[in-house]
């Protein structure tokens, strides 16, 4: 039974990384309805910002997190103001435009930083393992879990308890009426998109000590993020959270009992079957007509 507990923790860790990447996408796709295929590139930009801060300015990962959030959020803001805002309610065009922007971003980064794989040093404080309930765990993975929980709480608070969150919810319900009440819908959209991008940037920075940093790294993350958000039901934050951990546990256990190739295939099959019978996702909220 030892391995069950161990895999349970592993699943939580995989799930927390999935949630970290999916959280920003949920904001942009789940609330604003923008299918942003360049989401993975924000993750990549976050990782590269961490790398630049570390290798050029010798700033450690902890200290750079806030900077990374604002740098990537700013890039997201530019993208929203420059392109996305002209494409609201045109989902097909958005897919094409964001995909194109993603490719452009990849190649620009390749030209500026080179094609080599990069890495970000793990803070030495966290670069060891510890034992919890008889299971050996990487401290850095626990750190990621804690940060994700914090970001989740922050996001929930922003959406539900602040004026800007209330305005966002108003704009989403009815843009025209909200505008009549004096809410600047344009500004709300831009800020929300920037916040989503910033979260993706943080995700990139946080996973970069565990994985490799390359211009193409975003491609796999965007697929994972969409899987999480679609499976969870796009409207609810809780759905996204639960589906991230569900996928994490599922992947972890199958990978342990079989291997990662089988896990990847089976998880995809499970998702396809699920959305065939429950197109609204696992945890869709009841919408009042």
């Amino acid at each position: 039974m030892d391995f069950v507990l161990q895999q349970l923790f592993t699943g939580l860790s995989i799930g927390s990384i999935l949630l970290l990447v999916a959280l920003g996408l949920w904001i942009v796709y789940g609330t604003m309805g923008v299918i942003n295929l360049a989401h993975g590139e924000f993750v990549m930009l976050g990782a590269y910002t961490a790398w630049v801060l570390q290798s050029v300015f010798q700033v450690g990962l902890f200290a750079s997190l806030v900077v990374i959030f604002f740098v990537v959020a700013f890039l997201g803001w530019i993208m929203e103001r420059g392109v996305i805002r002209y494409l609201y309610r045109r989902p097909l065009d958005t897919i094409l435009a964001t995909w194109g922007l993603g490719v452009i971003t990849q190649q620009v980064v390749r030209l500026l930083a080179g094609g080599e794989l990069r890495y970000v040093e793990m803070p030495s404080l966290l670069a060891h393992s510890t034992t919890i309930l008889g299971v050996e765990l990487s401290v850095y993975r626990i750190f990621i879990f804690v940060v994700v929980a914090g970001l989740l709480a922050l996001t929930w608070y922003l959406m539900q308890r602040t004026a800007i969150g209330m305005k966002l919810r108003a704009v989403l319900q009815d843009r025209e009426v909200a505008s009549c009440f004096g809410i600047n819908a344009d500004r709300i959209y831009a800020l929300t998109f920037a916040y989503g991008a910033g979260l993706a940037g943080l995700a990139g920075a946080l996973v970069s000590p565990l994985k490799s940093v390359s211009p193409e790294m975003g491609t796999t993350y965007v697929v994972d993020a969409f899987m999480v958000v679609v499976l969870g039901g796009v409207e609810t934050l809780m759905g996204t959270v639960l589906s991230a951990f569900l996928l994490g546990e599922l992947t972890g256990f199958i990978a342990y009992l079989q291997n990662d190739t089988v896990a990847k295939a089976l998880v995809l099959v499970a998702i396809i079957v699920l959305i065939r019978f429950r197109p609204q996702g696992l945890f869709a909220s009841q919408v009042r007509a």
Partner: protein
Amino acid sequence: MKRRDVLQGAAVLGASTAIGLPHIWRKDANLARAANGEIKVGVLFSLTGTTAIIEESLHKATILAIEEINAAGGINGMQIVPVEEDPASDPATFAEKARKLVLGDRCVSVFGSYTSASRKAVLPVFEKRNNLYWYPTLYEGRECSKNVVYTGAVPNQQQDEFVPWLIQNFGTRFYLIGSNYIYPKEENNYCRKLLARYGAEVVNEEYVPLGHSEFSSVINKIRSTEPNVIFSTVVGDSVVALHRQYRAAGLDPEKMPMASLTTSENEIAAMGGDAAAGHFTSAPYFMVHQSPENERFVAAYRARWGDDKVTHFVSEPSYFQVYLFKQAVEKLAPSDISPPTVAEAVKGEELTAPQGQIRLERENLHCWLWPKIARARSDGQFEVLKDSAEWVAPVPYAAYPDQVCSENGLQQS
């Protein structure tokens, strides 16, 4: 203009182009391969896409060798003219660009490829046109083409000394992990045979998808099976993720080292020396190798491409195989230079490469090489622990004792 007119016009234009450029249709395709004191060769490494990370360095090593040869007066006074194409890490594009280099540019040879998939994709082009492809990468063997010169190691050259050495130093329990494609499977297939011969066991064999970066379940399995050696043929960015997560999980290379056939200086630069330190690699070449030829190679490479660049066990063959090409062409009269004559002339050629004296085996067009066992240091370089006493013959079908690659093709017994 009506549509029919356009079509007619296009047909006429097409026909006249075909007649107007008769050299495409000329019967003797080998004529004038070396015209105006120039020899055209193709350079086919990806500069974009997923494997560009490593192929860029192969491209640079190839170009460096060509520039050196040209600066020293070329081949019998003729300059090598590289025709560079970027196949964008895509096998189909590899085949298309290879066709362009062979048919369009009429190159006498093409240097290229990193992955087995891309080599397999271009193979039909070179066999059908009887041209010559120079492949620098260590690979899984089990190929016997008369149109490819293989200058990288095959499984017997990397494993014959390595596996017994690992058993002797660490123990008999091996955990085999690789990326999910042909190269790791063939290497592990041969490794299993060696392990059986020396009475060692495989505690688990598994493959992760290409580009996989989440190794926590794998690490749990490694913890619970407690192997003595983790035998890794994971490739690409997965190597980086595996090493970094191994370290984050607090595993100890002293007790349970990873033994890799694919981790070079290039991968270490990508993962950081701390994550690589203490793990082992077997290969014919390491950047720290002590020889005058290697010192010259490393110095020239850095002077040309930058001081932070590393050379590794795929870029070294990319470099020396151009010199092998030069040696073969030197033996030919300019009017005789063609892919088949170069292929014939290169058989049995020897030269002193950075790794040591190498020879191209006449029977199977693979190289005799100098396998070495090395441990990674935290400064990003290796420390060579064991140098082979003899050069080692290439046996591309080592795992298949009833098959032998000979000058007349594959022999079954």
